[in-house]
């Protein structure tokens, strides 16, 4: 079993290497074939591993450790070792499963692009790093995956590298991620100082020491600091409030990339990390509050921004940020199982929506502005139907998946942190509103598509519709994996060995009722409002709308308080410290030598009389000094 564990990351790696090196010579069919097969291979291996996990007594499967970094003479030795248990087993399935679907989808979506094989190489590389991140047996290896996915997202966002905006977005994504990564790095050092090891599992692993907290007491101050730093890392990767600005710009990359990385997998790494260290977070109430409130605020801010976007992919991007905010609300309120369940369901319907949007854009030959869409329902029926399913799911209308997972989060928030529940409820209302707005603007109403594109609409082929269909089915049935109200709690039992399942809360009926009402009312309002939408009338150019459109002006805020001062500091340090300071020192040395030299040269006046005079004077001075010193010294 432990050797299959190695297959999960290695097959995509081999696929990436093949595509990366000789891909361009293989031609589109073969290179996409290799990429898809390698991810499917990983998916099958993942299924086998998960099977092994559920059958094994300790509910985990470990690989043998291959030495990586070890310094002889010190206790430090970090191996390549993988450990799969129910928590990351579930994620592994999502990553490889959804990944495979998206690979199939992009085979057709990216058809004709000159960097075809390079794209698939990057995509496979991403799956490899994501697998390493999730399955890592120790923190440095997790960090390898953590920055690896950052690298993959940098490469994929900046895939169309002629576009300046694309490379700019890629750079922005990597740097903002790096800020989070540094927080994670420092958390690692603190953990090493506290627990004397970097291994997560095994007898002396950090998590085992945490569970047996009776033998190992960590004062809350240190626990809070580590927890907050971990959350800082998670916020960077999962685009939470201070560091979410990179996700909307990441839409510059190809749509399947947004689907895979910026919806289903990479952005959820932050939640995985927090859930993995849930014991540490539970040790410090302050950290839980911070996580909850940051999640709540991010959700609300992103939802508001989502309402005012005209670009179809930006809407989905802000929706992702908002949903991630909700997941962190769940973590903040102690419902880690609910968070992980929402991660899973969100992966399905958000991937569906993104791929659907991709199909729409593909059909309209790259048009992304919703003001130039409308009335497509009749033209691309299958896509329309599946996007409808996705919209219903995300809007939280029962019986689809979104409702069940979001409801549990609202329930947990309601029990533990009432104000944050308010934020979450408002967010879910807004979510329903802007998702239906997107659906209405694209598929219903009068067609605003210009006749040229409308004339030869590009009908998506099976390789695009098939993944959509599968995701549609999953969005429908996934909800029933964990619907406690209806008595189904398969998912929480599955996670039980790692995260204790939440106790039954008595007011689940009330919360469920509220959320259903909220969802339906918001959806109805949105449908009514955008049924007959024409470009002129619809666009209320009210200041509030504009304020929301620019993501509450966070970009300008960061430009003012972060980017400008740093560039000024760089310019200052280069100019005044480097040019004048350091080299000024050299000039100072130079000029002082000159000054003394000049006076020496002036003393050398060239007139013999002066020379003899100065010699006489010096002689007299020396004589007097010696006489005084000599006689006084003598007696």
């Amino acid at each position: 079993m432990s050797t299959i564990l190695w297959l999960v990351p290695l097959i995509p790696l081999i696929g990436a290497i093949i595509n990366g090196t000789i891909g361009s010579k293989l031609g589109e069919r073969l290179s996409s074939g290799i990429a898809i097969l390698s991810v499917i291979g990983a998916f099958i291996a993942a299924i086998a591993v998960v099977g092994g996990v559920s059958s094994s007594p300790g509910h985990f499967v470990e690989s043998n450790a291959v030495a990586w970094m070890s310094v002889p003479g010190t206790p430090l030795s970090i191996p390549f070792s993988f450990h799969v248990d129910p928590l990351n087993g579930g994620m592994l399935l999502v990553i490889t499963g959804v990944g495979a679907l998206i690979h199939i989808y992009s085979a057709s979506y990216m058809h004709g692009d000159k960097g075809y094989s390079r794209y698939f190489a990057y995509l496979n590389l991403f799956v490899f790093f994501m697998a390493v991140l999730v399955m890592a047996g120790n923190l440095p290896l997790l960090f390898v995956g953590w920055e690896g996915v950052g690298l993959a997202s940098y490469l994929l966002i900046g895939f169309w590298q002629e576009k300046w905006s694309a490379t700019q977005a890629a750079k922005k994504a990597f740097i903002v991620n790096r800020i989070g990564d540094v927080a994670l790095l420092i958390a690692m050092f603190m953990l090493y100082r506290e627990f004397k090891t970097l291994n997560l599992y095994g007898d002396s692993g950090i998590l085992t020491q945490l569970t047996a907290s009776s033998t190992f007491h960590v004062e809350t101050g240190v626990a809070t600091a580590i927890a907050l730093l971990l959350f800082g890392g998670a916020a960077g990767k999962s685009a939470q409030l201070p560091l979410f600005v990179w996700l909307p710009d990441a839409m510059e990359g190809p749509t399947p990339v947004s689907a895979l990385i910026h919806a289903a997998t990479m952005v959820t790494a932050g939640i995985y990390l927090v859930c993995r260290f849930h014991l540490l977070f539970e040790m410090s109430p302050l950290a839980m509050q911070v996580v909850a409130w940051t999640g709540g605020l991010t959700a609300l801010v992103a939802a508001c921004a989502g309402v005012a976007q005209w670009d179809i992919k930006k809407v989905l991007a802000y929706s992702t940020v908002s949903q991630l905010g909700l997941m962190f609300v769940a973590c903040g309120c102690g419902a880690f199982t609910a968070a992980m369940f929402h991660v899973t369901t969100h992966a399905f319907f958000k991937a569906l929506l993104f791929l659907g949007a991709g199909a729409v854009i593909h059909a309209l030959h790259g048009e992304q502005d919703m003001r130039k869409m409308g009335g497509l329902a009749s033209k691309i029926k299958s896509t329309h139907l599946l996007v409808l399913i996705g919209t219903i799911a995300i809007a939280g209308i029962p019986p689809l998946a979104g409702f069940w997972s979001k409801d549990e989060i609202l329930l947990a928030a309601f029990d533990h942190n009432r104000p944050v529940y308010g934020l979450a409820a408002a967010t879910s209302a807004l979510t329903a509103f802007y998702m239906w707005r997107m659906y209405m603007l694209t598929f219903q109403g009068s067609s605003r598509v210009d006749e040229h594109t409308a004339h030869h609409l590009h009908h998506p082929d099976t390789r695009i519709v098939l993944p959509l269909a599968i995701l549609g089915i999953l969005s429908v049935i996934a909800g029933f994996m964990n619907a406690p109200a209806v008595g189904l709690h398969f998912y929480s039992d599955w996670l039980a060995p790692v995260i204790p399942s939440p106790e039954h809360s008595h007011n689940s009926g009330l919360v469920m009722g509220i959320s259903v009402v909220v969802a339906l009312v918001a959806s109805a309002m949105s449908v009514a409002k955008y049924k007959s939408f024409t470009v002129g009338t619809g666009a209320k150019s009210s200041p509030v709308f504009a304020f929301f459109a620019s993501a509450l002006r966070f970009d300008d805020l960061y430009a003012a308080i972060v980017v400008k001062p740093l560039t000024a500091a760089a310019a200052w340090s280069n100019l005044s410290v480097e040019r004048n300071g350091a080299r000024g020192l050299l000039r100072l040395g130079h000029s002082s030598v000159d000054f003394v030299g000049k006076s020496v040269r002036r003393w050398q006046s060239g007139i013999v009389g002066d020379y003899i005079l100065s010699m006489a004077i010096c002689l007299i001075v020396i004589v007097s000094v010696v006489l005084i010193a000599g006689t006084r010294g003598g007696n």
Partner: protein
Amino acid sequence: MSIPLNYYIVLSMILFSLGIAGVTTRRNPILIFMSIELMLNAVNLSLIAFGRYLGDAGGQMLTIFVMAVAAAEVSVGLGILIAIFRTKDNVDVDVLNGLKG
């Protein structure tokens, strides 16, 4: 011994410092020579005085050396100075300031 030794020493020191003053203030090379000769003779005086007082022939022997050397020095010096000031109209040591800095 009619005149005590330190009278001679003081006299020679006075002559010596007069010589130094002459060398430093005068600008005509000939006068500078004369001042240097004055200094040398001041030294001769003190040598003779010491020799006489110590009853040792060393002082006189050195004085003779001094005179011989002074003669050689002056002859060479005059040769050089004449070579220089043949072309220049006024005889002024301060003219020699080509080499400086």
